[in-house]
């Protein structure tokens, strides 16, 4: 395991925003202003991997807003300045495509929108941090026939520009595409697969062979890219439901605020074929990462972030 990464809000400095959630039409350059501030904080905390929110440049490929499509080109100077700082800091950027997109949809318009979004986000990520970044995508639904959905996904992935393929990574999920299902598509298309600890446990039956599963995903990554792995723990709290009249039991699908330290240690100790970066998907964002570091120092003192 190489770097720990974080996603979500900056809780250690709540006044910092990853993007402007209130603005109706945020120009990419305004999001970049926010990101200069966030980057300074990430450097202070020695965070080496960060997931940009997908709302960072929301209209980059929106079919009804063509005048926003050139934002990356319009922000070349600002992106170059940021890239210099990102590269100097050794920060790896990642992005997750919105769940509304789908490689497998029978609706050609949805697939076209997926393609356009990937191409646009690729341009943005390349401009921000080059080929070291990762664009993660779920496959979509099954829509009644897994074979047909698989073929649609493969066709779309093979139609991607080489630059997009160089950044893209697929992720299995816990509803439609298990690790094994997604592996088939990853192997056919040579698009690497992100191993997700939570999805893996939620969709497979014990006894879990996490090492074998993890290594099968790591093996899909080309030699020149450091693989990325997701770790999250299920939320366990019983909560009062919105109606305030009943208790809501946890579903095991929601992410918890922190990472369960014993999951973290177990994952970090698995015998692996090659090192990987670990994205912590926890609601407490940077605080969860700082806590994970403390946990690693306590239970796995020989591990050290480079």
């Amino acid at each position, binding site marked *: 395991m190489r770097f720990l990464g974080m996603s979500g809000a900056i809780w250690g400095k709540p*006044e910092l925003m990853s993007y402007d959630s209130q603005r109706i039409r945020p*120009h990419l350059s305004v999001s970049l202003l926010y990101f200069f501030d966030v980057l300074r904080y990430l450097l202070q905390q020695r965070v080496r991997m960060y997931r940009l929110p997908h709302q960072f440049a929301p209209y980059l490929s929106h079919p009804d807003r063509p005048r926003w499509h050139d934002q990356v080109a319009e922000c070349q100077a600002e992106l170059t300045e940021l890239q210099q700082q990102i590269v100097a800091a050794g920060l790896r950027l990642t992005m997750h495509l919105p769940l509304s997109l789908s490689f497998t949809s029978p609706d050609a318009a949805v697939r076209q929108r997926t393609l356009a979004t990937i191409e646009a986000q690729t341009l943005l990520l390349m401009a921000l941090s080059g080929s070291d970044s990762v664009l993660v995508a779920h496959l979509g639904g099954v829509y009644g026939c897994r074979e047909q959905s698989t073929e649609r996904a493969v066709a779309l992935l093979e139609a991607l520009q080489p630059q997009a393929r160089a950044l893209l990574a697929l992720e299995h999920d816990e509803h439609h595409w298990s690790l094994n299902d997604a592996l088939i598509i990853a192997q056919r298309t040579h698009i690497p697969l992100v191993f997700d600890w939570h999805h893996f446990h939620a969709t497979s039956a014990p006894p879990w062979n996490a090492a074998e599963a993890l290594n099968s995903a790591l093996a899909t990554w080309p030699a020149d890219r450091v693989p990325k792995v997701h770790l999250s723990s299920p939320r366990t709290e019983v909560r009062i439901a919105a109606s305030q009249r009943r208790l809501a039991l946890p579903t095991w699908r929601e992410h918890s605020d922190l990472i369960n330290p014993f999951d973290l240690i177990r994952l970090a100790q698995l015998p692996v074929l090659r090192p990987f970066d670990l994205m912590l998907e926890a609601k407490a964002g940077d605080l969860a990462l700082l806590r994970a570091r403390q946990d690693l120092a306590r239970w796995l003192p020989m591990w050290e972030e480079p």
Partner: protein
Amino acid sequence: MSYALDTAVLVAVVTNAADWERIQREGWYRIPLRHAPQRLGARLIAWYPTRACGDERWQVRWYAPIERARLTTRVQLLPNEPDHPRANERYWRIECGPLNRLPRPIPARRQQRVTFIPTRWERLLHAHDVADLWIGDHALEELCQALTEAGYAPTRRRLREGMGETRSDLEVRPTLDGVLIRWPSGAVRLFQHELAWNMAACVQRILFHLQCSANDSAREILLQ
């Protein structure tokens, strides 16, 4: 247009009439990259014009939404000044929407040196003085508020003021990784993550140490 109370606002100084004219007529403001504030991201920008700006001087009255930010050179911004010594230096060009007037202008009662003040919409609406606009670090604000509610009068210091002598009964001083609370006979250091996780416990800890110091002082007086 209404904004959420926590909307980020950047208050920026305007030191010459030409810049003030450009803001009003052309809708943009410039910030030298090397003097840009630590927190630049904001939804709104408001201005604090100085003496050179005539009747608008020494008050915050006008604000506008930030629409676009461009990184460029001074000579590109001001092509009629190609021989300026900083012609090739890089500047932010902050482009704004239409200027709006605050319901109540915020005067600077004491003429103070202001460059940039990152603040919130709520402060812009309710401040009585430009000095009220400073919000600094969110956690520090909350900590000072809690200490005030506990009956103390904390004095906020800035990071750049360094670690000189304690000049008041209770000082709250930011450090790179948290905050240092000092009083004449003691100090407590708190890390950023401690403040973020459990502010109440941090306040309790400070109050406990303050109480211990007060007890020690009382004991010394009794023994004398």
